[in-house]
């Protein structure tokens, strides 16, 4: 489906199923505050190509803020972001999207007035080249382009198994399906890095299994690097390669799931807040 990454994914599958590459995103000493309230303090971690990197931590630990820093919704006061070898003080949402970062949100951020198909089609907006006048005519290039991208979007729809609801307004869908459509919108952009903010929040066990499978498939088939925030420790242990743990805006742990779970600070943070 996603031709650019096909070669990489194939190569990965031949080896160990997935081949984790070098560091493509490096966050260095990121600090972020809102009007004096510190959300993130001095946080550094990196993300390697093709890996699944989880961010965990209690509520209010700054996980979502971290994702917002990565794709430029929030601008940190201090620190640097190195993405694909380019060092920047802050990201910009538009540039981040252009460089292949896509994401989903904790509270579903679909376009409520539009159908599933149109929602996913917006994911391809950046790749569409025709202009307003061509759209007004809807003839020739504009129509060809629309059809070409529609084909891509149908592939995403097939991948996520949501064919039957493609014309339904997203507002009418149950929560679990909305989450899936939101993933579809992100995938339609053929991202090289996918940021997922609690993709399984509020789901039942079966829905969680489906979603885990989609995430693993995306990572496996397209080689997409995934950064995800998740509360369900079982899921995190199962699917992620490395985990970073935040608490009160500070990093308290970083490593493989096993290492992190054995970290006394992490245990303390979890026991101290949720039990």
């Amino acid at each position, binding site marked *: 489906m996603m031709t650019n990454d096909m070669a990489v994914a194939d190569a990965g599958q031949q080896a160990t199923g997935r081949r984790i590459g070098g560091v493509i995103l490096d966050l260095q000493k990121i600090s972020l505050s809102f009007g004096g309230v510190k959300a993130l303090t001095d946080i550094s971690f990196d993300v390697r190509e093709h890996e699944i990197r989880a961010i965990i931590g209690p509520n209010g630990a700054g996980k979502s803020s971290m994702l917002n820093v990565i794709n430029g919704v929030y601008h940190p006061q201090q620190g640097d972001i190195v993405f694909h070898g380019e060092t920047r003080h802050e990201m910009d949402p538009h540039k981040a999207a252009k460089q292949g970062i896509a994401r989903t949100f904790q509270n579903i951020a679909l*376009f409520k007035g539009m159908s599933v198909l149109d929602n996913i089609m917006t994911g391809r907006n*950046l790749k569409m080249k025709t202009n*307003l006048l061509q*759209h007004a005519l809807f003839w020739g290039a504009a129509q060809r382009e*629309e059809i070409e991208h529609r084909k891509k979007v149908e592939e995403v729809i097939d991948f996520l198994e949501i064919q039957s609801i493609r014309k339904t307004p997203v507002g009418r869908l149950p929560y679990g399906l909305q989450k899936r459509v939101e993933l579809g919108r992100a995938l339609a952009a053929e991202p090289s890095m996918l940021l997922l903010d609690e993709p399984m929040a509020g789901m039942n066990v079966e829905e969680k299994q489906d979603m885990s499978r989609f995430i693993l498939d995306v990572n496996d088939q397209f080689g997409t690097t995934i950064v995800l925030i998740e509360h369900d420790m079982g899921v995190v242990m199962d699917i992620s390669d490395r985990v970073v743990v935040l608490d009160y805006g500070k990093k308290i742990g970083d490593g493989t799931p096993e290492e992190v779970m054995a970290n006394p600070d992490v245990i303390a943070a979890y026991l101290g807040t949720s039990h």
Partner: protein
Amino acid sequence: MFYREAGQFKASYQADQQIFPIRQDRVAVWALIVFFAAVVPVIADQYWLKAILIPVLIFSLAALGLNILTGYAGQLSLGSAAFMAVGAFGAYNFMLRIDGMPFLLALVMGGLCAAAVGVLFGLPSLRIKGFYLAVATLAAQFFIVWALVKFPWFSNYSSSGVISTQEISILGFVFDGPTSKYMLTLAVVVVLALAAKNMVRSSTGRAWMAVRDMDVAAEVIGIRPMRTKLIAFAVSSFYCGVAGALYAYTYLGTVEPEGFNLDLSFKILFMIIIGGTGSIMGSFLGAAFIVLLPILLDNFVPSLLGDLVSSSFVSNFQLIVFGGMIIFFLIVEPHGLARLWQIGKEKLRLWPFPH
């Protein structure tokens, strides 16, 4: 029983992308266009053409313009009438000052003037979320009417800014009677309505709706909110500008800046609220409703209550009816007449079997 899509399969994406995917709808729309283009000019009398059909078409176009901005891009303008004025005076000056200016080109130029002025007022206010565009368009409303009155150049130095439009002639054919003016208006409106539909079903339209529904998410996808809103506002102003030029040339013939007042802007807003925000057809339904309602009130209220009521009562009654209907529609059916029409169609699809 007869209105259903069963058996109509789409074998290509092109077929699936049609404006009216259901065959019966396509037939109905063509029948409607043929009716208005071929039958109406023959059967309608002068009063109907001049006082009802032409203004309904023109206001449909203006409402369409506002609907692109408000219904699709989620921004509110209170200055639609002012942009109509820019279009009218723009077209007038192009016709006046350039020898042999083709009328249709003047129409487009009028629309482009309106779009340019729109961008000027939109730039400071669309950077920020909230109701800033509403206040900016109020600024445009008051400023533009003032400027057209105070700078006599715009009206070729006539008294208090009144302009009388030049004769319309396209390729030697003179549009002087109501029938020919009606046909011209209809042609322009149909073409622009089709263009609007095309824009809203392509990536431009999806970007507008994305910004309307969830601007942060749109930004993360790579849609620039400011740019998207500004394009919507420019297109919207263009439509209002063309509508204003038609208003001067094919409807009234003589217009003054004060005629494009805040009240007219509100009327256009009411058209899209009652007709249906975010619907092309709603713009037409709303315009017809708002043009026809006062005519009905004027004719029926006095005849019902006889000499009891003065004309000022009737005009106040109109205010009350308009205001009341706006609130009623926003509460009961925020998507207006177009949505009611849609519900009717869905029912028809199932008829006569309810499930």
